[in-house]
């Protein structure tokens, strides 16, 4: 059984159908890439998995438990962590408080001090700036904060939504190195990216979305450039 199973998913955004018949599997320990042009439906899919949107039909299973009918906070408690698009750092809280609020739920709250140390180890710059206001950090640092915050809830399954947006290649390279490290330590990862090349390099498996449908899936090493272009744009 795959860790995450998405079956025949239809999702509507207002009156517009954003996803049609989406089927997707993520095996334990994989790094799965989700690609597609702007508006293809990637964010919608992620929001549906994390419970912020509800599907019109279809189902989502996590560790064989049905989750498409659950509230976001329950889904987080099951072990899914989402690093949202746009980082969404809380300006009302400091760096440290932003991290700590990531371990809001009971299970994670008990071990929060240890987890905090681990996150600081992973991203030392956060430790240096721990007393500063969350939104006073640079773009790359905020992205690290957002990732660290998601890790604070002790997820077994992490989703990264467009983390390279607006960041320099050097910073992105560092972030990806961190993601690979986390994966090697046992985290299952789903990456949503604009940066096709980089994401296909690091992934075990990839899905390409176009206008709400999966148009290509498989091991990225088997993808030809032509096939990818066609899956993206349909030409």
């Amino acid at each position, binding site marked *: 059984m795959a860790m995450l199973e998405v079956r025949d998913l239809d999702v509507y955004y207002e009156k517009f159908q954003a996803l049609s018949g989406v089927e997707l599997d993520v095996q334990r320990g994989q790094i799965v890439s989700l690609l597609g042009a702007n508006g293809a439906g990637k964010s919608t899919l992620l929001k549906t998995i*994390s*419970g*912020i949107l509800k599907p019109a039909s279809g189902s989502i299973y996590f560790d064989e438990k049905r989750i498409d009918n659950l*509230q*976001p*906070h329950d889904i*987080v*408690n099951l072990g899914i*962590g*989402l690093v*949202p698009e746009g980082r*969404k750092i*809380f*300006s*009302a*809280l400091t760096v440290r*408080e932003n991290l*700590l*609020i*990531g371990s*809001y*739920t009971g299970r*994670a*709250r008990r071990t929060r001090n240890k987890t905090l140390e681990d996150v600081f180890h992973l991203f030392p710059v956060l430790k240096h700036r721990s007393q500063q206001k969350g939104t006073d950090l640079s773009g790359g640092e905020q992205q690290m904060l957002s990732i660290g*915050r*998601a890790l604070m*809830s002790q997820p077994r399954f992490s989703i990264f939504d467009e983390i390279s947006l607006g960041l320099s290649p050097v910073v992105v390279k560092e972030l990806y190195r961190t993601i690979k490290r986390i994966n090697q330590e046992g985290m299952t990862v789903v990456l949503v990216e604009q940066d096709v090349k980089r994401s296909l390099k690091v992934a075990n498996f990839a899905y390409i979305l176009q206008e709400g449908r999966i148009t290509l899936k498989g091991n990225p090493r088997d993808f030809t450039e032509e096939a990818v272009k066609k899956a993206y744009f349909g030409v």
Partner: protein
Amino acid sequence: MLRFLEPIINGVLLGGLYAVIGIGLSMIFGIIRQVNLAHGELMILASYFSLLTLQLLGLHPLLTFLFVLPAMFIFGYLIQALLFNRVMGKGMEPFLMISFGLSIILQNALLLIFTPDARSLKNTLVIQSLNVYDLFHVPLIYIVNFAVSILVIGLLHQFMKRTYLGWAISASAEDLSAAKLMGINPKRVYALAMGIAAVTAAISGVLVGMTFTFYPHSGTQYLIIAFGVVIIGGLGSLPGTFLGGLILGISQLAGGHIIGPGFQLLSGYIILLVVLTIRPQGILGRG
């Protein structure tokens, strides 16, 4: 000029009390962007509850806090959990109308139980006053009110800054989606926040009961004061709420001093209407 000293000083002290009246409304407005029209009734409910406790147990009004505050916390929690949580996310109208309905129910229930007679929580602080170099008089109760209000606002400020629940409330107010991703259950946070708001309303209700006479319908004027404090001082601003209370308190007492005691409320209302017209988000608030 000197004859203004007394109303201004008293206005400042009263303003502290007004700030506590408004802080609960401000907090809830900050989180869920809705005004609880029953806020005044929560205050007066606490005043009457204190009266009961006082009559049954013979305690000093300030000691009734021990019973009134926990009871009001539970009451606030329940009205959010059972009533308001059902219509969260359905727009402004349902919430407005339900809170309005609740305010009417509470007001008339109090009227039925306690009759329309004037009541007050008898204490000696109201009669004693401080005589400052014969320049002006300050009733002791005003000083107590001001001290309590500094305490309450200070505590609330610390609570919001240092506790998990406080962070959860700030986070939910800022970005609800992101807060949900932290594992925060919005309905539970709202209910807890309403409980806290009810406690602040209760504190101000007991103090008001000790300072002035109250009736079942007094809730209305205090709702407008609370709203005024929030609007003048600005949303989402703790120091702003305090400033709002001060401005309202001073303008009420100064206005009453100039025009006449019957017009105290009116001068407050006029200031409020002016601010609403020019700058609804308040003097210090963020739009």
